């Protein structure tokens, strides 16, 4: 259906992960619609969109971690093997080892009654079959790699004794302990101060580059994605509406939604009080309340009758799903 050039075997060699027609449904209501994209090896890709656009569900579906009551269809190919078709046992060998995930809220992602050292050792013990002692020394190294101060001492600390940034560093240490090929980071810095955000992102990029891994960075923060990533996927209403290199998408957006998102960022050299902050008209519809056809139709200034049918995503490198693309 929505071609991606995935059929080309030489291309597939370079891709760490290929998602084909991924659909996530709550009961009978589809919340992510036939999403397709590929993550090239060593490349950093941003997935942006508002809350409720299906970013996190897409990530959880890739990881096979959808909560109860949600189902995924389509194909998620990791090195040519379909993760969705794997048994739980096969999946366990890949997940957390080859494909790791960093969660948004480090406070709930760390067990409050378990010492940091034990939690960081956990993936090493489960995946690498290390003994407790061996895993401990590997965990200290992992904590050193994420530049957590006093790693040996911090091994014995409980999560509440660390700051938000330190907790996120510990989370990153856990996720990268097995040097995964793909790191999925779901809003890894949203819960942090802006200054700490920058440090954590820098660290994440450094680790990913060092290990030659791919990164899928999920964020609603456009500048963060622009700074960190090379490619970007824009999601709205469970569809990928635009895809391309960061320069193309942010420089010359084709989809009105991307344009509207970019316009909503206030710029520093504007005299703010005299200029109203620009918002996108209307609000994101609730689950299953999106209009048929293009989901952005009811908020889009360019919408007309054609938009009642969902457009295919078109273009070669810079693609957009719109009947009336800009530029």
């Amino acid at each position: 259906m929505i071609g991606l050039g995935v059929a080309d075997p030489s291309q597939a060699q370079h891709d760490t992960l290929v998602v084909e027609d991924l659909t996530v449904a709550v009961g009978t209501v589809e919340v992510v619609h036939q999403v397709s994209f590929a993550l090239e090896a060593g490349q950093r890709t941003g997935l942006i969109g508002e809350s409720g656009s299906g970013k996190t569900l897409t990530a959880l579906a890739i990881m096979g971690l959808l909560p109860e009551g949600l189902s995924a269809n389509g194909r998620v190919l990791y090195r040519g093997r379909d993760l969705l078709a794997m048994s739980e046992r096969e999946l366990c060998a890949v997940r957390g080892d080859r494909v790791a995930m960093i969660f948004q809220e480090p406070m709930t992602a760390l067990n409050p009654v378990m010492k940091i050292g034990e939690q960081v050792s956990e993936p090493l013990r489960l995946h690498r079959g290390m003994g407790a002692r061996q895993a401990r020394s590997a965990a200290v190294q992992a904590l050193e790699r994420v530049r957590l101060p006093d790693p040996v001492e911090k091994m014995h600390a409980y999560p509440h004794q660390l700051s938000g940034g330190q907790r996120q560093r510990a989370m990153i240490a856990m996720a990268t302990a097995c040097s995964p090929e793909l790191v999925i980071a779901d809003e890894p810095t949203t819960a942090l101060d802006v200054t700490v955000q920058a440090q954590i992102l820098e660290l994440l990029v450094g680790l990913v580059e060092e290990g030659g891994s791919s990164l899928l960075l999920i964020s609603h923060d456009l500048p963060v994605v622009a700074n960190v990533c090379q490619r970007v996927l824009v999601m709205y209403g469970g569809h990928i509406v635009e895809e391309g290199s960061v320069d193309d998408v942010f420089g010359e957006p084709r989809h009105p939604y991307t344009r509207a998102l970019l316009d909503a960022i206030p710029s520093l050299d504007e005299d703010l009080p005299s200029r109203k902050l620009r918002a996108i008209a209307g609000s994101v519809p609730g689950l299953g309340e999106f209009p048929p056809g293009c989901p952005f139709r009811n908020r889009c200034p360019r919408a007309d009758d054609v938009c009642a049918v969902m457009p295919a995503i078109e273009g070669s490198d810079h693609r957009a799903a719109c009947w009336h693309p800009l530029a």
Partner: protein
Amino acid sequence: MRRRLPLTLVVGVLLVALVIVTALISSVWTPSDPTHVEVSARMKGPTTSYLLGTDQLGRDELSRIMAGARNTLLVGIVTVLIAIGVGVPLGGVAALYRGRVEDTTMRLSDVLLAFPAILLAIMFAAVFQPSTVTAMAAIGIALVPVFARVVRGAGLQIMQQDYVTITRTYGGSNAWIFVRHVLPNVSSVLIVQATVAFAVAILAEAALSYLGLGTPPPTPSWGRMLSESQTFLDQAPMLAFWPGASIALAVLGFNLLGDGLRDLLDPKLVERLELSS
């Protein structure tokens, strides 16, 4: 600022310590043999050789109370261990596997909960011989649902946490998640529950012994001492007082300890108390 220990905890610890110390001393030393019958000294009041007097068979009341403490403690420990040993894995399985497994285990525990411990003990005593072992088994089994429910309830909540999801991404099995993540998180609730269950067990054992379904003679047991003293209530009322008071204080001690531990271990409750005061 150092928080003051709750008064309930202090009193509870003291009473429980008294029972434990008495039981420990009685296993190496008692003023006289608690089973030695001295017909010439029946139902004596307190004297220097018999500090709490003697019972209807001329046995030293103090020695019997002390030995009774040992019996009480033994029953409490074994029953609580049975209840935890069966209840915790049952609740864990229910929380981890959900669905039909959860329904089955929880309905089973409902059935068990509807069954009075005494009735269970009477059944056990009828099928086997009335003994300390059958009493302990019956009380222990009757207490299983309490632990199964606590662990399932807390476990369900913990299973929703991101860190459990993360462990799953690392390939953590259900058993691993239960032992490493669920158990440490429910341990404080379990400690409180175990202490309260201890009090319940003491009371249940006393009731069973009173009915003649618990510890058989000649091993001293507070419940049976109470029932034996009944016949002589007008001649020697103190014979009913000592075992009765021992049971009451031991149960009170464990209940207060449980309450105190809950206040100490539950930060949410402490916050609420501080806010309201």
